[in-house]
């Protein structure tokens, strides 16, 4: 057995991951994000991201051009999403990106999260042009500036993890 690779973010004892029973539970690893956007002068987008048990769901509205759908197998939650507690997100963000069925690229800049304000909490995120199965892909060209609202919380990816789902307690009626 080895320690949880997410380190102390998963709890103080890195050997207690997967509820202390690595044979029964599976510590769902993995990352992904899905983004749907439409801007024609004004518009909006929805982003769903998952990373190692933490979900982040946000909607953005503002000004921009373009739109489409992008799936990124290595997309991840934003630095504002804590991995140990739920919370809300409100920030201003600029996004630009191009996605094709074969690959794509994206760039984002965001202000600190208003609900957990840290003056140094602004961030930029860059995925350089990449092609292939592991690259972000879809059909999308967009540039936008706007305001983003959302939430993050922790839940294992039981939907795709039958071992975990079978082990989850069923609430009594």
């Amino acid at each position, binding site marked *: 057995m080895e320690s949880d690779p997410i380190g102390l973010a998963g709890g103080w004892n890195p050997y207690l991951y997967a509820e202390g029973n690595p044979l029964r539970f599976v510590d769902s690893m993995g990352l992904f994000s899905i983004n749907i956007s439409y801007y024609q002068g004004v518009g909006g987008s929805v982003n769903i991201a998952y990373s190692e048990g933490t979900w982040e769901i946000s909607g953005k509205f503002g000004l921009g051009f373009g739109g489409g759908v992008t799936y990124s197998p290595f997309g991840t939650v934003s630095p504002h999403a804590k991995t140990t507690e739920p919370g809300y997100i409100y920030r201003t963000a600029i996004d630009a990106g191009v996605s094709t069925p074969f690959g794509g690229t994206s760039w984002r800049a965001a202000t600190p999260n208003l609900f957990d304000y840290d003056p140094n909490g602004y*961030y930029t*995120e860059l995925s350089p042009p990449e092609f292939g199965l592991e690259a972000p892909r879809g059909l999308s060209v967009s*540039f936008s500036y706007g305001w983003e609202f959302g939430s993050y919380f922790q839940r294992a990816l039981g939907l795709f993890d039958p071992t975990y789902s079978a082990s989850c307690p069923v609430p009594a009626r």
Partner: protein
Amino acid sequence: MKITTRRAAVLTFLVVASVTLFFFTQYSADNDPAGTAIAEYIRQNERVMEQAGTVVNADFVRRVSVGPNGPGGYRVYTFIVSGTKAKVTVVVRAESLDGEQPRERYSIESIDP
């Protein structure tokens, strides 16, 4: 020539795509000295070697910069690492340390199969 809504939309797409692609082609992981140093750090890291074997290739996937450049801020680099034993996703955190001579400290945040 009359510019229809459809033409305007196509033109907008083309302009946005061109500008965005131009911006991104200006970036190269090889031009980021920290990115190169981190790739080398990954190659020599024991934890990575334990899971992936000898590192054959480290592909840069994403860089997230949080806060200011220098002390107080940090960057997180994601690499897909192909080794002789396995292919893993390695996330490395880079932070600047205060001192007479500015320097950076790297640490492995996660290694996912």
